[in-house]
């Protein structure tokens, strides 16, 4: 086994009394696409900023590509790409000018590489558009291009898809897979559950703590030990009230046109009877699959 691309041990960052990142430990191996899931303010961005040497850790240590993030941050920076939450684009420059500028900053003077990057992120044809006139989806692509222009081996993407429409999001993930296939390791933060499903491994973060990190399948298996039931009943709200009172239910929640019940003890018949007794018309009760949302909510409790 080669060294992990990212190695984090007891990494901690405090802002005054507030602990933004609380003794986290994880590793990321070469070629992986690792998701970092958590609500806003859970410490995802702070973690990435420490790995890039933008913020000093208060405690613990971390290496990126074998380089210490505190003492060798310049070595790290030259080899990684970073796409920040705020797309770091100059509004008053064109697409090409933005990319040429960042390329130049990385010491890339070869025009071919710039054009290549434009093609890679699908911005050909928009070279001379002022970026303030671009849609969010296009700006996102340019931002990725900026992170990629120097062919990094590791890519940090901080909420790359926030504010982008679903089609553009899907296209963006296709691009991420393409990059991963070419050997780039990717650490991507998100608060979208569906996006986390796309990752090979997912870390779940809350209040500065890394609650778990594993493949989505393993997470579901290990965290959601009960059964998942999908209850189609009418009226739904009253059904929810009734099931919430039922002993042995781990969690029950509304999910569109049905109720989602997680429990390891309750049987289908028990629910059926209870609902009918309360004058709730039960259409059907089915077994469901656990989702990352279930995992997240279970962990967050």
């Amino acid at each position, binding site marked *: 086994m080669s060294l992990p691309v990212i190695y984090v041990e007891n990494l901690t960052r405090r802002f005054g009394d507030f602990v933004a990142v609380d003794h986290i430990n994880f590793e990321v191996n070469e070629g992986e696409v690792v998701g970092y899931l958590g609500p806003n303010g859970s410490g995802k961005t702070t973690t990435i900023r420490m790995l890039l040497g*933008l913020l000093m850790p208060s405690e613990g240590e971390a290496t990126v590509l074998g380089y210490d993030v505190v003492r060798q941050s310049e070595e790290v*920076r030259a080899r990684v790409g970073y796409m*920040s939450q705020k797309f770091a684009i100059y509004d008053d420059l064109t697409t090409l000018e933005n990319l040429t*500028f960042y390329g130049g900053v990385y010491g890339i003077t070869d025009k071919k590489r710039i054009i290549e990057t434009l093609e890679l992120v699908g911005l050909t044809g928009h070279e001379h558009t002022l970026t303030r006139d671009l849609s969010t989806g296009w700006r996102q692509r340019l931002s990725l291009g900026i992170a990629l222009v120097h062919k990094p081996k590791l890519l940090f993407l901080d909420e790359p898809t926030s504010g982008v429409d679903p089609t553009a999001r899907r296209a963006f993930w296709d691009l991420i897979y393409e990059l991963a296939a070419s050997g780039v390791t990717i650490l991507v933060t998100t608060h979208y559950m569906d996006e986390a499903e796309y990752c090979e491994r997912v870390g779940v973060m809350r209040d500065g703590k890394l609650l778990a990190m594993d493949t989505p399948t393993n997470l579901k298996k290990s965290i959601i030990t009960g059964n998942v039931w999908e209850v189609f009943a009418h009226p739904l709200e009253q059904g929810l009230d009734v099931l919430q009172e039922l002993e042995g239910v781990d969690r029950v929640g509304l999910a569109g046109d049905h109720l989602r019940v997680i429990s390891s003890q309750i049987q289908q018949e028990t629910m059926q009877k209870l609902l009918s007794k309360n004058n709730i018309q039960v259409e059907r009760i089915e077994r469901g699959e656990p989702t990352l949302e279930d995992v997240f909510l279970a962990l967050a409790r």
Partner: protein
Amino acid sequence: MRSRLLSIIRKEFIQILRDPRTLVLIILMPIMQLFLLGYAATTDVKNISMAVWDQSHTQQSRALLDAFRVANYFSIDYMIGSEDEYRTLIESGKIRAALIIPPDYDIRLLEGKAQVSLVLDGSDATVGGTALSVAKLIGQSYATKILSEQTALTGRQAAFAPPLDVRTQVWYNPDLIAAYFNVPGVIGMILYFITALLTASAVVRERERGTIEQLIVTPIRSWELVVGKILPYAILAFIDTLEILVIGHWWFGVPVRGHVGLVFLLSGLFVISSLGIGLFASTIANTQQEAFITVMITMLPSIFLSGFFFPIAAMPEFLQWVSAIIPLRYYLVIIRALLLKGVGLAALQNEVIALSIFAVVIMGAAALRFKKRLD
């Protein structure tokens, strides 16, 4: 390294050229300031409105009035006959000065004890002060003339009553034209304003937009980022210097007696100080607005304590000490001396040393605060 620096400079120029407001500020502000300070803010005193109460009505008194007329500083607009009259005229602002010639002026003059009184409206200190000294000058030179005439008349030797000898000589700017004094000042002010303000806001803008975070994660070095960001503004500052010099020289007739190369060299020294202040301000401010306010806070003391309008020697001691840490103060001495006196480097030694120290200190302080980190 060259590619990184050039990239920043090129990007900065594209941004400047694409922002019409900044461009207008850079090109038009110096012109506006020049014309404002060259014309409106003039302290030249001409044609002060004056009333005369001639109680003597003699040939001698008329001769004195002629002396005032010839000098052009006063315009005799009213001939009056009482104290109430000039009081009313001064109060209503119609006149700024009243000359009162006593009834026995001619007799007294022969005795050599003639006295006239001049009442001045001192509510505008500049005009009042100038009028007072001018009137004294006229009086003295006239007295000298009379004395020498009398001496000639009586056939006595000049040694008996030496004529009052007031030889006032004003060097460099003999007509005390305000523009000569103001134009070099405008150069200093504009250089300071353009470089400090634009540098501060250009750096803070990167922070506001979040691009600084992206720049920090690139291999760019802090000094490359700093130099690349401020060099374009330094170049613009030189264009402004040239613009002011050209307009000042050909429109306002301000002399350029010193070596032009030296003007630019020492202006460069001053620009480094201003850039340092702008850079330092950018490390304090988080938004462009804060940057603007921070620079403005340094702007007012710079203007008022640098000797731009008011002589430093006339300030209370405490403010004189404060003015010692204002770089514009030294630059104003330098630029005025270079343009008006045409001195060389040797005469400006102290100012050059002071500016150099300031430049090193402020740049060092800014560089220490300007780290490639977010916290």
